[in-house]
């Protein structure tokens, strides 16, 4: 499987990455090579293997349901680009 120009632009858009026009072909090639490697791995029969969800062979540690965080809004909002009335402000999302 290989990726074309449109695939690269779509992936870049989904990840909100700017890709210069001149680079698109190169990315298409490089990503296609990665997929070729995946294709080769697909040739191995893995039907008896449990899919790996995590490289560490462990299970999730759980924490008790206790509130420990205190309000640090002021500290957090000091580093935000824009705030008002306790809200974080972002460019208008809908018209």
């Amino acid at each position, binding site marked *: 499987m290989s990726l074309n120009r449109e695939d690269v632009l779509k992936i870049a858009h*989904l990840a*909100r990455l700017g890709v210069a026009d001149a680079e698109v072909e190169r990315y298409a090639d490089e990503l296609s090579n990665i997929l070729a490697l995946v294709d080769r791995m697909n040739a191995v029969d893995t039907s008896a293997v449990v899919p790996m*969800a995590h490289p560490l062979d462990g299970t999730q540690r759980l924490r008790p*349901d206790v*509130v420990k*965080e205190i309000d640090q809004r002021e500290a957090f909002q000091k580093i935000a680009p824009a705030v*008002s*009335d*306790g809200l974080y402000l*972002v460019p208008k999302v809908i018209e």
Partner: protein
Amino acid sequence: MDWEPVVGLELHAQLSTKSKIFSSASTAYGAAPNTQACAVDLGLPGVLPVLNAEVVRMAVKFGLAVKAKISPRSVFARKNYFYPDLPKGYQISQYELPIVDKGEVTIQIDGGSEKRIGVTRAHLEEDAGKSIHDVFPDATGIDLNRAGTPLIEIVSDPDMRSAAEAIAYMRKIHSIVRYLDICDGNMQQGSFRCDANVSVRKKGDTRLGTRTELKNLNSFRFVERAIEYEIERQIDVLESGGEVAQETRLYDPDGNETRSMRGKEEANDYRYFPDPDLLPVEVTDELVEEIRASLPELPDAKRQRFCDHYGLNAYDASNLSLSRELADYFERTVEISGATPKLCANWISGELAGALNKAALEIGQSPVTPELLGGMLKRLADETLSGKLAKQVFDAMWSGEGEADAIIEAKGLKQVTDAGEIEALVDAAIAGNPEQVAQYRAGKQKVLGFFVGQVMKASQGKANPGQVNELLKKKLGNE
């Protein structure tokens, strides 16, 4: 042409934990903006999520209640999309391996028949924050207090064939999460939310039609209306030769219609992958069995017991087992009053439900407690009160005038059952209205009601209506 609607629901229930699913920030509703949004909830660099144990327990509870298989190993995945109320750029959810596998519930539909509705799966995920669009002229305000609140998303099979069935299913799930005490069920505050997938097909077809997804359904009534509207709309489109577009539509309660969310139609491409910050979640058999042993009596079991033990009909039993609070109220009332369960059921589903509804109160907030209602029903059962007088006593108790016995005493509301006293009133009514007596004897049976009215009026509503009726019939018929 006969069309068959097909409906499936995605229900989101906020789990009522104290802290968030992956952070120790509070989940309390209504705090000042962003005062309950910690570094994890804000998605600041370097933070790591740690799963809340109570969330896992609650999901297992739910799974057991819908007879589902609990996955011994489930995996959290990242669902990637960009929206400002989701600062990380992805929502932690479950994709391929949800914690709750296939289950089912039974709904009661019109005419008392039952239907099985499949639960495809239920998975855990974090809620997003809130966007405030209408306060700032050229900015959107973001409140991340809700970000990271635990949700269980419950996905049904496309098993429902009408809006009414969809509502019955939704009520059943609502009732289950409330019984389990894992969600407060408050739809106004968004603790229980519904998206509906609706399609129609020709009756007899086995293939599903193209579906639309309905959003913005924040009450049972809106869900029902939106589905009804959407079914009609799709039938109209198909009958006029058109095709239903697969899209998301918003319900507008003011216009009672659904509208396409144009412009937001970018195909979903969430690029799920296992979250490397979280290890697989293990649920041991011991934990499942421990939780199974602690489950409360659930709505279906309670309904069945209400039929078997109290002899209620299916309708009353369903109504009264809808919520744990209501069921407890009923059982306590029966116990205190010593009256028949049917009489208690009638008063609770009738007079009491009406008064609560009018005052917009929940059963737990009722000014008439089971102790008060039971005390009054005791006097109805022993014939101190007639139905009519009981209503007066009920109203007085509702306005906080105390216990039934005290009200009966203070207002002189004791029913007259003394045969001699009633006979005197009946005789007077007959003697005073010769014209109506003649009409009755000429075959105009309806006039009996006039006499009953006269006697009741003369007794100030206190004569026992049954006795009055009987005696009037006897006397008017005899002479």
